[in-house]
């Protein structure tokens, strides 16, 4: 894209009216163009005002708690990675993903694709990759459709192969079962050739892990029969 043209994208960028390729190109340009940064600063004030131009009904009361709960869970999972500068954290993820090429064959290529998809390399995925990258971790087969990777401390990640996207209004929910009692361990949507979920609960020796289909916000205990199951 010619440099003169790219300056003209500032307003569209401020409105989020660029498609993904254009957005990336513009952000690259922004890093080197003071004129655009200044202009964007001004135009962004106007777009933030537009946000206040909408009706503001009260959000669902449960939303606040869900956000805080999820944030607290992430903090305990990912503290070591979060504390690094951003670019090093991303490099770390890439290195872990590359390491998988040795241990887990074809997974790495697919994971690289997924990392590209998720521009923010989500904390959940980083936590899962930390488990997958642990050289002491054991891999437990859950049949053809998935496996479980468990570190010596019990941190676990679930990896599924070609799990179809969950039906509308539904989600996949993982369970850690101890003494016959299933406890919720995280939600996933499926739909990729590989899906990775860092379990929210540790998986001690002799515990089982199962995956069921549940309503989209998850359930407190399983309401359907497991589609995947295995014992640590």
């Amino acid at each position, binding site marked *: 894209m010619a440099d003169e043209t790219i300056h*003209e*994208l*500032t*307003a*569209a960028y*401020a*409105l*989020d*009216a*660029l*498609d993904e390729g*254009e957005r990336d190109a513009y952000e690259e340009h922004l890093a080197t163009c003071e004129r655009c*940064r200044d202009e964007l*600063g*001004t*135009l*962004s*004030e*106007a*777009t*933030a*005002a*537009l*946000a*206040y*131009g*909408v*009706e*503001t*009904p*009260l*959000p*669902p*009361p449960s*939303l*606040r*708690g*869900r*956000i*805080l709960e*999820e*944030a*607290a869970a*992430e*903090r305990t999972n990912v*503290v070591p990675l*979060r504390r690094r500068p*951003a670019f090093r954290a991303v490099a770390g993820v890439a290195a872990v993903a590359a390491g998988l090429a040795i241990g887990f064959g074809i997974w790495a290529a697919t994971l690289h694709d997924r990392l590209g998809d998720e521009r*923010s390399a*989500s*904390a959940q995925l980083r936590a899962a990759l930390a488990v997958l990258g642990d050289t002491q971790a054991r891999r437990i087969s859950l049949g053809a459709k998935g496996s479980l990777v468990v570190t010596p401390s019990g941190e676990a990640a679930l990896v599924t192969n070609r799990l179809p996207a969950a039906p509308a209004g539904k989600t996949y929910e993982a369970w850690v079962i101890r003494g016959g009692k299933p406890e919720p361990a995280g939600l996933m949507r499926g739909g990729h050739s590989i899906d990775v979920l860092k379990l929210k609960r540790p998986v001690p020796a002799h515990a089982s892990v199962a995956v069921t289909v549940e309503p*989209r916000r998850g359930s407190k205990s399983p309401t359907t029969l497991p589609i995947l199951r295995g014992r640590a």
Partner: protein
Amino acid sequence: MRTSEVTRELAHLSDEAVVALMARSHDVALAELYDRFGRVAWGLALRVLRDEALAEDAVQEAFLTAWRTASRFVPERGSARNWLLTLVHRRAVDLVRREERRRAEPLEAAAEPAGAKGADDDALLRLERERVQGALAQLPDQQREALELAYYGGFSQSELAERLGQPLGTIKSRMFSGLARLHELLREPAPEREPWRTRPSTS
């Protein structure tokens, strides 16, 4: 409740200070940020997505992105409020573009104001909304149309050029002129820029 007591303690801090605390993993700072902007974030996501389940996803993901990336927030580049609302808006736009059904709907649907859903409306939010809508109303029709379809409808500039049957350059210049004019119109001081102070957290 402990959380809401601590949240009130943060009420005197600037948005930027709250984000700085969040960067150090203080979850009460995240709660404070939600109490300040959760309602506007929800209204915005709902306007773009017009689906409560998707709007919940957008707001949740945006606040969690803020939580994860707070340490990269640079106050010199803009306010914390702009930063957060940009995260919400971008997430909503990404989601709406993935929703095939929106593609089939007529353009007008995106530009129509949402119905009067704000039964439990907040007076200061309403004043701010009237101020913004008043400024929008003063723009030339074509500029207002471009801003509303892009920002509230989630249409990209190329989609707009195609749907409105105009050259891309025309769409770009309508967006630019519209935003620049809107900025001028809104420069007159707002009646009150800190609406959260009148609504102590009740959770």
